[in-house]
């Protein structure tokens, strides 16, 4: 069934706080082979002008993926996850994510379209500190094949 166009603009409550740990940043950097010391060594990060070790540019997906899952599981969206592939991804960074950040992720449905029998769902997840400082936005376009 094609997605309901009136879903566009629907917002969801902020996620629970995600506390960014040094070990998690190092683990993610290892997993993508990013050897830069700013991901592991606080002194190197400070020398580069950061208050603490910073995460690689796509690290936000570790918290925005599950935040976007809330949208996919919304009964009004009810996307068949077994048919879903990742179509597009965008990150807009206001500043790098860093160790010690306490982040909340807030999803919004940005667009729904049906193209060639596929449902396309675009979700934007805004990531901010719990004090409200914007950190980044992650926009994911998911394609549900053959569902429209």
């Amino acid at each position, binding site marked *: 069934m094609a997605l309901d166009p009136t879903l566009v603009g629907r917002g969801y409550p902020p996620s629970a706080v995600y506390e960014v740990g040094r070990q*998690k940043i190092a*683990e*993610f950097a*290892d*997993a*993508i*082979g*990013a050897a*830069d010391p*700013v*991901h592991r060594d606080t002194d190197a990060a400070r020398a*580069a*002008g*950061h208050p603490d070790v*910073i995460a*690689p*540019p*796509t690290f936000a*997906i*570790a918290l925005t*993926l*599950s935040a976007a899952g809330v949208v996919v599981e919304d009964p009004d969206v009810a996307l068949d996850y*077994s048919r879903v*592939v*990742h*179509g*597009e*991804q*965008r*990150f*807009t*960074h206001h*500043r*790098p994510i860093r160790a010690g950040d306490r982040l909340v992720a807030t999803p919004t449905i940005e667009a729904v379209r049906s193209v060639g029998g596929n449902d396309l769902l675009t979700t934007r997840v805004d990531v901010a500190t719990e004090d409200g400082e914007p950190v980044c936005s992650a926009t994911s376009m998911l394609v549900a094949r053959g569902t429209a």
Partner: protein
Amino acid sequence: MTATVRAADVGVGTELPEQTYPVTRADLVRYAGASGDFNPIHWNERVATEVGLPGVIAHGMLTMALAARAVTAWAGDPGALVEYHVRFGRPVVVPDDDAGARVTVRGKVGALGEDGRARVDLTVTSGGEKVLSLARATVQLA
């Protein structure tokens, strides 16, 4: 928060050093754990072929992360990447051997703003095929 490449030293058409990254099944397992994306098509051949894929495929987000490495290695600061967009074209199939797949990243400056921001247009291939059909990264240069 400073890139080591100066905007004054860059022009439209400046090419980034080409990078090639190997991706093995072990890398996919490691990335699944680090990112929390445990979709079995990234580690289970049976499930991957059941859903019509040629085999286990890399996470699109891992390919995206590797392409970002090529950009930030050139710019000199992983914190310099301010905007990054990719469209996932075709999957990176990762064979069950020790060599795995290879992802090659080429980049060229497509636009340069007065604010010292460069838009890098990326060509990302594996096995000679484009795997990202649109990939653009904007970096704040020094």
